[in-house]
Structures are given as C-alpha cells and as structure tokens.
C-alpha cells in the first residue's frame, strides 16, 4: 500500500497501480482519450496529464501523463493545476484544428472552454485522433489486422498494404472502442463489411437474428475450445431453450405432486 495526496486529499493505492486509475476511483474527472484497460497504457493523447511534486522537491514540479505514471508514496498530485489546464486546452485546441468536424472533440473542447481553434484548420482533417486504440486492441485480441502506418503528421491507421486485412475476423472491437467513432462498418443483407472486407454474419437457427461473424465464431471454437453449436442460437433463444427445458421438469414435478 502506498499513500499519496490527490488534490489535497490523502488516498491509498496499491503498488504498481497507475495514477489515472486512482484518480478515477476518487471520482475526479480527468479526460483520457487513448486509454483502455484492456491494453497497456500508451501516452499518446496527453490529456490525462497531471502536475506532480513531492515535499522534498522544494517547489519544483513535473508534468506527467497519469495513465502510465506509477503511484508512489508521498506523491502530491494536482489534476487541475493551471499549467495542466493550459496544456489540456492546448491539446484540445490542436485537436479542434485537425479534426474540425469531430463531435466528440467539439464537445470535450467545449467543456474546457475552447470553442474555436486558434490554429490553422487542417483542411482535409478527418476524425481519427491517432490514439492507436483500435490497433492496440486488435493486437490484444490476437489478430494484428491493422496498425499505424507512416509517421509524423501524415501517420494513419490502416491494414497492411491498405488491402482487406487477411487476419481480421470482423469482431468489430476496433470500431466499438474508437473514441471518435471514426471506423466505419456496414451491415447489410447478412453481410458485415469493415476495412473493405466482407464477412458472413451467423444467424440464429430459431429466430433468424444476426449474431457474430462466422470467422470470429470459428476462431473462438478453434482457439478457445467452445463447442461450435453454441453459436447456432442467439442469446434470447438460448434463454428460452433453458426455460423450456426447466419448464418440462417443473411440469413433470407438478404432475407427480397432483
């Protein structure tokens, strides 16, 4: 156990924890756009920046990203110091210049009082803030279907060779966790399309509802040893099946009692 001070309050945390999780546990609102607990902290968006100091630092302080700064005994943290707020505003302002049409950015920037960018608007700026979550989560799922390509201001997210990625199973984890909902996918006539790759969606053998893609289901059966027939039925019909089975026993019970 370590003891540290956050915004004047003394809090406890366990060794190895990152500052951001302690801050969140304390219900302090600190923005974080490139962080997800399923993957290692990354430190790209820099919004989770906080000011840290220590008694023995004699007034000197440092600015660190809380998502990957490990807690330590005696740390004094200020999540909304003037420089911290200024840096967050600057980042949101830079985002606003690059992603002028992104509603998630417009909203968050608004919360920090930034409504118009002071910088030059990037004309063809799309909504990808390059947080890398999609690619990192895809890696974590074990697929490695997409990654960042290029560097500098022209960096982007893409599948290898910009072609339909062979390793993608259409699990949609990238799209589901994109903080700006930038990743497009389409479901039409039993087909899911993402990253220019088409997938057949399994349908429930009882009600016809679409569930996950065949490729994802096959991956799960093969890699995780799940009986393939589990994927034949949707969740609602599975529950009905269970109710019916238990119902038969109960009805039999009733007869016996009568």
């Amino acid at each position, binding site marked *: 156990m370590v003891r540290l001070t956050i915004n004047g309050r003394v809090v406890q945390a366990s060794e190895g924890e990152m500052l951001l999780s302690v801050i969140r546990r304390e219900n302090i609102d600190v923005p974080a756009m490139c962080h997800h607990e399923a993957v290692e902290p990354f430190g790209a968006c820099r919004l989770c920046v906080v000011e840290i100091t220590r008694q023995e630092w004699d007034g000197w302080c440092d600015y660190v990203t809380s998502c990957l700064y490990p807690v330590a005994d005696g740390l004094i943290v200020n999540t909304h110091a003037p420089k911290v707020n200024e840096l967050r505003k600057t980042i949101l302002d830079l985002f606003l210049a690059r992603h002028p049409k992104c509603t998630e950015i417009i909203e968050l920037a608004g919360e920090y009082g930034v409504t118009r960018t002071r910088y030059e608007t990037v004309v063809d700026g799309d909504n990808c803030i390059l947080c890398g979550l999609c690619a990192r*989560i895809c890696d974590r799922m074990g697929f490695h279907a997409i990654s960042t390509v290029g560097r500098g201001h022209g960096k982007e997210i893409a599948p290898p060779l910009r072609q339909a990625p062979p390793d993608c199973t259409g*699990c949609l984890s990238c799209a589901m966790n994109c903080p700006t909902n930038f990743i497009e996918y389409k479901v039409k006539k039993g087909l899911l399309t993402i990253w220019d790759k088409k997938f057949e969606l399994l349908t429930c053998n009882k009600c016809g509802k679409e569930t996950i893609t065949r490729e994802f289901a096959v991956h799960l059966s093969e890699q*995780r040893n799940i009986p393939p027939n589990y994927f034949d039925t949707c969740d609602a019909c*599975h529950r009905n099946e*269970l109710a019916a089975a238990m*119902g*038969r026993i*109960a*009805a039999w019970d*009733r007869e016996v009692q009568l």
Partner: protein
Amino acid sequence: MNHRFIVTPNLCTGCRTCELACSFTHAVDNVRGQTRIFPLDGGSKDLWIPVVCLQCDDAACVKSCLVDALRRNPGTGAIELNQEVCVKCMACVAACPFGCSLLDQQHNIVVKCDLCGGDPACAHFCPTKALQWLPIAPARARAAS
C-alpha cells in the same frame, strides 16, 4: 462457491419483481440497467422459469473472452465482467449456451449477472421464494428430505 440459486418454478407467479430488482441494482448513471434475470414462459399454463446465469465452472463466456475481461470473483463465486476491460466484441454473448451474457442496449455495454456482490437482489426481493440464494449444504439436505 458455497451458495447456489434454488429455483422452485411452481412458486413463481411471473410477477417480475426479480427483474425490477436487478435492473435497479444495476442502474448506470441513475438510469435503470438491463436486467440479468428473465422470468420466462416455462411452456405450460402459469409456469414461469426465472432464467439467470449459472456461474458455470468451465464457463464458455470466460473462455471466449480474448481480453480477460471476465474473471471469477473468488469471494462470491460470481463470474464478473470488468466493464473497463471489455472491448464489446460480443464473443461471450454469442458463446454462452444459456444466453446469460447480454448487451445492455441502452448503455451500449455488455453485462452479466454478478450476484450483486454476494447478496443477489433478485432472490432477496422474490416475494414467493421461488428464487432463493441458499448455502449448498442445506440445499442438499432439502433435496434429501
């Protein structure tokens, strides 16, 4: 796990109190959450079956989760879904043979029964004791009698 759900279908009146209790207990930002328990039609007249996660030992949901968001809480025995870790891939929803991993559409999150941390609200509020949360030993005793 030293407790189990004991379902006595013939006592269930289909009042759906369990569903309400669950939904309120799992509210998100003060908005009612998706219920994890479903009193369903048992196939005969006035026969209701409360269907809820059985916290399987070798659970399909746990096996299907590629990011380890589902873990058993050793204290309560419940398989808990860590919302922060879940990437909403729907694998567990598709894999559970009892349909007990669910999408909470309103909040766009995946949820499942967590036994309310050891005292399930559904059983707690069931007015007819059709659903009970009982220690295993007495249950055996009851079965023997």
